[in-house]
């Protein structure tokens, strides 16, 4: 193992340890997309401009996710971290003012949202990851039979598994919010680490 590889391995292990501690202490950082939130549904009678709602929601709540309900634009879903009665009243008065409605508090539907657990995302990729890793491992053992088992394990399994753990550790250490980007990031890292491993083993053979 080269000195550079040893340093990378050491840094990876440190990152994973810090990540594990942070997970135990603080857990992952969730933002509005996947974290606990409140969804406010405002029914609409006429067509509307989504941007108007985005600016109203931004003014009242700051961070928000505004989406249209149904393709016939029957209403608006505003996802916010939390809402108070005062904020709801302000929202109603701004909507009434903008669209000339006479909405009251009971016209709005407010529901509590729980978070999407990171493990429910990881669970989805666990079986495909393990299956592919095993099949590729068997392929590597046959293709590079001149190399010993330990060599293939060190050059294939270790980098691929480490890359996944380091990605999760970076999410935890940098407090990157868990969103719908987590799974694509993990999949991309998986393929890149697989290409890296394959190239390393190929170069070693040559």
């Amino acid at each position, binding site marked *: 193992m080269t000195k550079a590889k040893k340093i990378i391995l050491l840094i990876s292990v440190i990152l994973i340890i810090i990540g594990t501690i942070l997970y135990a202490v603080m857990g992952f950082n969730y933002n509005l997309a996947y974290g606990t939130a409140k969804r406010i549904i405002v029914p609409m009678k006429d067509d509307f401009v989504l941007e108007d709602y985005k600016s109203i929601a931004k003014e009242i709540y700051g961070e928000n996710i*505004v989406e249209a*309900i149904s393709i016939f634009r029957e209403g608006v879903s505003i996802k916010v971290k939390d809402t108070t009665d005062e904020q709801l009243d302000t929202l109603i008065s701004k909507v009434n003012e903008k669209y000339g409605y006479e909405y009251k508090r009971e016209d709005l539907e407010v529901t509590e949202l729980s978070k*999407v657990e990171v493990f429910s995302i990881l669970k989805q990729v666990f079986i495909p990851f393990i299956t592919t890793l095993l099949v590729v491992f068997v392929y590597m053992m046959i293709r590079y039979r001149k190399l010993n088992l330990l060599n293939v394990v060190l050059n294939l399994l270790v980098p691929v598994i480490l890359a996944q753990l380091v990605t999760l550790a970076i999410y935890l250490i940098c407090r990157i919010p868990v969103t719908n980007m987590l799974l694509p990031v993990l999949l*991309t890292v998986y*393929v890149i680490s697989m290409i890296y491993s394959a190239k390393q083993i190929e170069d070693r053979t040559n």
Partner: protein
Amino acid sequence: MIQNYYNLKYSKEEIKLKSTKKLKAITLILVIILITILSFLGVYNVASVHGDNLVKDYNVGMELKNKKLVRLKVDDTVNEVFYDAEGKKQEKQNDEGTYTSVQELVNPQEVLNKENYKKALSIVEKRLNSMEAEEYKLRFNEENGAIELELMDNDLTNYILESIRVPGDFKIVDADTKEVLMDASSVKKAGVLYSSANSASTTVYLDIEFNKEGSKRLEELSKTYIKTTENVVNEEGKSEDKTVEKKITVQIDDTSIISTSFGEPLTSGHLYISVGQGTTNNEELRNYALQASIYAAIIENGTVPVVYTIEQNKVIVSNMNKDIIPIVSIVVLVIEAIVLIVVFRVKGIIASILQIGYVSLLLLILKYTNVYISIEGLFAIVLVGLLNMAFIYRIMYLIKKGENVLKSVNENIVKFINVSVPVLIVAIIFCFAKLLEINSFGMVIFWGYVVSLLYNIVFTKIILKNVLDK
């Protein structure tokens, strides 16, 4: 004279060769431009009122289209239940006899606990998987048991919801006495089967496979619940043969699926129940198959211990749409083109054209191979684009160093194939995943590699050979 003649002939051949090379390269570059136009701009039917694009559109996942938002709430309804004098529950009060009316919660207090909520979530998830829900996200509140489900909105969504909406208490009961003969604990698995007794029509069957004990019990029932002929004395005092049929009822949550007797003892441990009638109509067949799938998903995954009600059922239009695919591709292509032109100057322009052609062809193929593109698929498009760029970059680098064009391309293709096999294995296995996120990623990687290999053999090799080879 002779020497001049040969010199002249040689230069003519050389000119001819050069012009052929130019023509080949120009033709291929024109093909690339055509592919790029088809892929990014499309071809519009001017005769159509809406000016429809004749090029197929992308199939996209729920994050780039619409998603169904369903909120399942623990049912807190109080029902009025009637009991007769013997303490038996009656469906409704009638004038005969004495009845006691009791206010009963749909979910008694003792079932409302975290353990049951978690079990309910697990069963809902299993049913979603059994129904092959392609893309979904679950939010779960373990304090009140509420489950919020986001799933892809398509023609199967309502069938999927049908399978998770009910508790799914599966029972086989005596049709007359309502005595429970078997329940979900005897079931091993359930599925859907098709049978074409004659070539004209197909019948859909719900196939319930029982475990060892269940199979024994089913065999016993199949010997007991049969049609028999008894000799009875009629009203006129004459003796006659009467057929007596002892029936079982297969039911889910008090809803009967079938009431029947057995024609012969069942020893296989399978109970086949026909769903609908034999049909030749594809639409009918599909509906029967979906109905059977709902039954199978409910039966094989057990009973939800808590009764849920649908509190919210709305379609949310995603803020991102399919336009993000060409937008992201163009942004990445611009960055790649800048890098290639900065590093390789004029030759970098040719490399950029090749890279644009590759991405355009890949996007066009993804449209026509019906690959569903989710956010994961979008990442995969960027990834295979970058890998192809790395391939072209390496060739250009070798050419810059003075290597032979053909040799550089061929050597790199061989290297590319050697390193690609593990990723292709991953991509192919991912292609078989039920979840759209994984499937989309795998499909794009697979097509990305296939297109890259063919494209570089046909386009990159020929264009570079004809433009850069001296």
